[in-house]
């Protein structure tokens, strides 16, 4: 290990760029998968069987297979199919392939968290809303979902911290994120320092996330103060 200022200075540009890619994958995945999880969750508890089947099979596929396999499929697999069937739009570049795969994969996990949150709300809430004239949709969006927020924050937080580390999988299809930058530098210099710096980078991100979630939990915990 070599933490001299000169060496860190040499490593910095590549690692910073890698960290930037890591953050970009992380943020884009969240922006896409957090909302996408909701229709999947609602679909999987729908009273109509086609959306219910579709959403449940979707969740099963994406939670039931390795994320790395999914990455290979969306990058290499679709690329091969694009050639075989003459469907060029199936061919994704490395970075879009990562975003598509991660967004679809994480949407499946978030959907399950949302679904559990929705199903944890007491039946009496639906009944009260119904007697007040709410439609099923109005009940879901005005009464049920707002009350799940507080409950789903901890598991969602957990999942996003996992996502920070899963971004490193993008390295297997050659995306230059933080781990790849560290590994390249380490191999080049036969030195472990890049790995330690990369670890520090991941830890910094997860630390910031933890702070954000503590704030969120407080913010949405307001109405759950107990009577004195």
């Amino acid at each position: 290990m070599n933490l001299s200022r000169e060496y860190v200075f040499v490593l910095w540009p590549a690692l910073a760029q890698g960290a930037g890619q890591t953050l970009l994958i992380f943020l884009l995945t969240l922006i896409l998968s957090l909302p996408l999880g909701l229709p999947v969750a609602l679909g999987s508890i729908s009273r109509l069987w086609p959306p219910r089947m579709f959403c449940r099979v979707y969740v099963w596929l994406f939670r039931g297979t390795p994320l790395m396999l999914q990455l290979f499929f969306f990058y290499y697999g679709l690329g091969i199919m694009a050639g075989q069937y003459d469907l060029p739009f199936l061919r994704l570049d490395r970075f879009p392939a990562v975003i598509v795969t991660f967004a679809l994969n994480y949407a499946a996990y978030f959907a399950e968290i949302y679904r559990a949150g929705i199903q944890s709300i007491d039946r009496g809430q639906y009944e009260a809303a119904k007697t007040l004239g709410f439609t099923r949709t109005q009940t879901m969006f005005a009464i049920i979902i707002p009350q799940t927020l507080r409950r789903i924050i901890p598991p969602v937080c957990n999942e996003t911290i996992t996502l920070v580390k899963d971004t490193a999988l993008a390295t297997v299809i050659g995306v230059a994120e933080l781990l790849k930058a560290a590994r390249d530098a380490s191999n080049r210099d036969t030195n472990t320092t890049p790995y330690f710096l990369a670890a520090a980078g991941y830890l910094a991100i997860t630390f910031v996330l933890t702070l954000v979630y503590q704030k969120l939990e407080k913010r949405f915990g307001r109405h759950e103060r107990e009577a004195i």
Partner: protein
Amino acid sequence: MTDHIVELDRVCKRYGEVEALRDATLRVRRGEHVAIIGSSGSGKSTLLRCINHLESIDGGSVRNNGVILAETVGGRVRYRREADIRRLIMQTAMVFQHFNLFGHLTCLENVTIAPIRIKRENPAEARDRAMDLLRLVGLSGKANAYPAELSGGQKQRVAIARALAIRPSILLFDEPTSALDPEITGEVLKVIRQLAAQGYSMVLVTHEMGFAREVADRVVFMDNGGIVEEGIPANIFGHPESERLRLFLQAVL
């Protein structure tokens, strides 16, 4: 054409093999206060919940203000379209045993949400009226508190204000004090008594015999899914005709 607000005609309800309601018929006139008594599992809550479609019926018919909500034609129950049902059941309002306040909303918001979001009333006016209703139940000081900060009796009083906010033509009380500690049932009963005095029509499912006797114009005794006996409180409590009612009264009084 009719001054019956609620008409349940020979309503049947089954849960699998269990017959929860057998040919139960209940009519409530405008301004009338009906109390339904009976032991647990006698079907009294189920009957109440058929009025506003929280339970669907398996036979018979349900009318609100003379309009058919569900009827049995040729042995099959036909319900009105969902949008019509929604409009009809908004003319009734229910107060639940477990309050069912919306936990993410303040007391004031609990009372205003249906008038503003569903009935599209002017928000400022809805809030003014909600404050009046909270004052009526003695909780104007808790307008900005969340349900979790209230006692059980306070929650139930907010729930009553919320029910009144949609201007129902009848109030349905489903064991409104059964989840409360005995020493705080009084504050809830006081509010219900007040509403009765103001002439609100109501159906009250209750275990509070003294209160039923005091407030009701008519008492309905249910047993085993059917209505066994009904009449004015003095007769029901003073001169029970059926053996089952006598046994029930002996057990609870």
